[in-house]
């Protein structure tokens, strides 16, 4: 039999002014199960807590009901107090007679009546309370970073710095990501590769970090502290341990007509290749789509020239299984497909390029060695038109554009304009913009420099049509200047389109595996937009970089470091304390219908075939639900879906809530 103690707080006059606290304490005496009741000026004070503790011991109380302020205020305080004398903290209930009674009602008679009802409801629930113990979860002290761009590298370095092992899974043959493809960075005009390649080397040389390049995450199981991840290491046909990266094979490979992804297919590479000079790991990879040996059984030259015998044509994809305590998603971004905007003639003329392609055209490691040339005739462009917001800030119903602002385009276009003017001062540059967005340190100054110092023509307006003229090799740009209110025609040599950024196409697959929520644009959703911006709602999964939303390099790096700090926070613990108020199925009741698994936002529910003892010494295999206590957050969606009531929520059980309903309605 439960022995309940009821304690009514005056809260000075906060409660006592509108609620007759003595009457509430007196009324409690007649509630079934209540063996002790008292009122006290400040329950939350040290002496108030002592009163609770003493009474529990003196009257052998099994449950405590405190009638005071909101449980959001002091539930933890009182739970701690009773725990200190050996009572299970979940045997305590709070009746909220301040925020939801004395403060909102004026009439003392009515207020007292309501307070008594709230007290009775709390007693009714308390009677059904059961002791709850949070589960303790061990932590695997290793982290996984998905994506080897600047976000992934920074996160990995910071985690490694704290002394934990990190694996980076990168789908490309080298880490470095998009930042390695950039020429310069805004607004300082640092050489991008000069700052990113040392980072790549740091990552490559850090003995806590293992780079799993040319690999994909295949499966993620488990939960915070204990993720089981399957990683596919795609066949490289080159032994990573043996290859020295000398590059001889790439020179001798006869298949030289492979489109070069690194330069966005503006030039070609050999079939066995190292993406670029500073690649990490600096190891050759054979492209199986083009290799003569793999496809036709001929050639085999790379194997012959390799001095260390690293070439292995028999290599197969390999699946490795690893355990991690936390995961950072840093899957990055891609440039959206803009081929549907045929008004800009992208795809019709090679001289209409995206900004990232322009970046490669300008790069010293690019197809023209840093000399800015038109892709069509390799002549220097004299007039260049930049078009902003191609595919961004557009309703999806229009052309399937992105409704969001891609954020980085305004700044990199200013950078392109300045760099071009720097190297080729006689170039005419026009930038058609809707708005120039420069919120950032030194950003607006940078943009103003482009206008004032370099004389870049910024035109508030848009481009309506780009017509390539075969004979002259010019691109006729029909634009509109909103300030002058006139249409203009520009004979341009090149047109550069600021194409929208979009999340990596692998992101959705990844989010599904991680059971991490995404928005409609396939960006990962943070757990709280303001207060938990680097955490996914899935415990143990953290977010860094563009995969969470458009951002520039410093923002990406700071988010990566923040995510790393969160990861370290998880890994530094030996055990994680779970939330005991979670769903649990009564296996004898569960009928295996699997509806609950369908509504669980965290994927915490799985099903197992389990043997049950039946009458007459027989057994029966039955499919029953299992709740992963580490993953369940205790929302209760499953409990309502369960037709048999087998799934219940600890701390808010069906019986407890029904008892409250009964107490309030009678």
């Amino acid at each position, binding site marked *: 039999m439960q022995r309940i103690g009821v304690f009514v707080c005056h809260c000075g006059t906060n409660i006592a002014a509108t609620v007759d606290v003595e009457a509430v304490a007196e009324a409690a005496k007649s509630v079934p199960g209540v063996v002790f009741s008292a009122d006290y000026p400040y329950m939350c004070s040290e002496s108030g807590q002592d009163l609770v503790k003493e009474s529990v011991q003196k009257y052998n109380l099994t449950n405590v009901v405190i009638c005071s302020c909101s449980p959001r205020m002091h539930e933890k305080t009182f739970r701690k107090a009773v725990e200190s004398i050996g009572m299970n903290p979940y045997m305590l209930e709070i009746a*909220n007679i301040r925020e939801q009674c004395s403060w909102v009602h004026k009439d003392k008679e009515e207020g007292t009546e309501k307070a008594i009802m709230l007290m009775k409801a709390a007693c009714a629930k308390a009677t059904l309370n059961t002791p709850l113990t949070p589960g303790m979860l061990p932590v695997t002290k290793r982290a996984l970073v998905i994506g080897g761009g600047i976000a992934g590298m920074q996160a990995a370095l910071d985690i490694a710095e704290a002394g934990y092992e990190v694996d980076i899974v990168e789908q490309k043959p080298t880490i470095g990501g998009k930042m390695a493809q950039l020429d310069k960075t805004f607004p300082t005009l640092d050489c991008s590769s000069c700052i990113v390649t040392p980072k790549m080397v740091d990552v490559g040389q850090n003995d806590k970090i293992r780079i799993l390049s040319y690999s994909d995450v295949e499966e993620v199981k488990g939960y915070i502290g204990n993720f089981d991840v399957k990683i596919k290491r795609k066949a490289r046909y080159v032994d990573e341990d043996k290859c020295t990266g000398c590059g001889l094979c790439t020179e001798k490979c006869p298949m030289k007509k492979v489109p070069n992804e690194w330069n966005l297919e503006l030039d070609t590479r050999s079939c066995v290749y190292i993406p670029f000079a500073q690649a990490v790991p600096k190891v050759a990879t054979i492209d199986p789509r083009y290799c003569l040996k793999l496809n036709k059984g001929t050639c085999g030259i790379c194997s012959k020239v390799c001095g260390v015998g690293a070439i292995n044509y028999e290599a197969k994809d390999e699946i490795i299984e690893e355990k991690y305590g936390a995961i950072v998603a840093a899957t990055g971004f891609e440039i959206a497909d803009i081929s549907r905007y045929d008004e800009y003639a992208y795809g019709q003329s090679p001289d209409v390029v995206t900004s990232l392609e322009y970046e490669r055209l300008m790069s010293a490691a690019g197809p023209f060695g840093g000399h800015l040339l038109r892709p069509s005739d390799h002549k220097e462009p004299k007039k260049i038109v930049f078009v902003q917001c191609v595919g961004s800030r557009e309703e999806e119903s229009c052309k399937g554009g992105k409704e969001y602002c891609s954020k980085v385009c305004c700044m990199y276009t200013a950078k392109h304009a300045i760099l071009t003017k720097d190297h080729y001062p006689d170039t005419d540059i026009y930038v058609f913009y809707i708005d120039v967005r420069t919120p950032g340190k030194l950003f607006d100054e940078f943009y103003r420099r482009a206008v004032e110092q370099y004389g870049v023509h910024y035109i508030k307006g848009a481009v309506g049509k780009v017509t390539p003229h075969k004979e002259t090799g010019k691109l006729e740009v029909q634009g509109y200047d909103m300030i002058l209110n006139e249409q203009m025609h520009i004979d341009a040599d090149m047109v550069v389109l600021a194409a929208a950024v979009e999340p990596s196409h692998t992101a959705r697959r990844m989010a599904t595996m991680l059971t991490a929520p995404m928005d409609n644009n396939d960006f990962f959703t943070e757990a709280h937009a303001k207060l938990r911006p680097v955490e996914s709602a899935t415990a143990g999964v953290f977010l860094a970089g563009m995969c969470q939303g458009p951002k520039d390099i410093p923002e990406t790096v700071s988010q990566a470091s923040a995510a790393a700090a969160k990861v370290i926070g998880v890994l530094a613990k030996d055990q994680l304390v779970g939330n005991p108020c979670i769903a649990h199925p009564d296996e004898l009741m569960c009928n295996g219908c699997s509806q609950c698994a369908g509504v669980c*936002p965290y994927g915490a529910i799985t099903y197992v075939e389990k043997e049950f003892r039946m009458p007459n010494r027989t057994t029966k295999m039955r499919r029953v639900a299992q709740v992963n206590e580490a993953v369940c957050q205790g929302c*209760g*969606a499953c409990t*309502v879906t369960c037709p048999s009531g087998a799934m219940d929520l600890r701390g808010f059980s069906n019986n407890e*809530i029904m008892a409250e*309903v009964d107490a309030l309605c*009678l």
Partner: protein
Amino acid sequence: MSVKENTEFQPTIVAFCCNWCSYSGADLAGTNRLSYPTNVKIIRVPCSCRINPMFVLRAFQRGADGVILCGCHPGDCHYMEGNYHTRRRMTLLFSMLNYLGIESARTRVEWVSAAEGQRFVDVMDDFTAKITELGPNRRLEDLRCKKN
């Protein structure tokens, strides 16, 4: 057990509030000393999706005159999608209750955020007024459990 017996009708109203938004919203109403009728009795649940249709029916069975469910605004659920489930479930449940002839004004779902103390008060004022107007829930209440 109304203390104002033999005076005007005092409805019993049960309000289920999710812990993260609406319960905090109700707390905020208190902190700001915004007043609403004493008829409203709040039951705290972790998420609006914890509210089983059984609870709603049970409240009516035990003599509630109105049941209101409050949760985070769609898109703001602490558990990401709980209130989307609530929305569907309750739409269908209310439609069924209506089909059985129970006045649909007796049941309601409102989205109240933790910042909307005033909205919580407005919602409760309005709901209480509507229920008072409707009168006692003769159609569903359990006569034997009612004390007077």
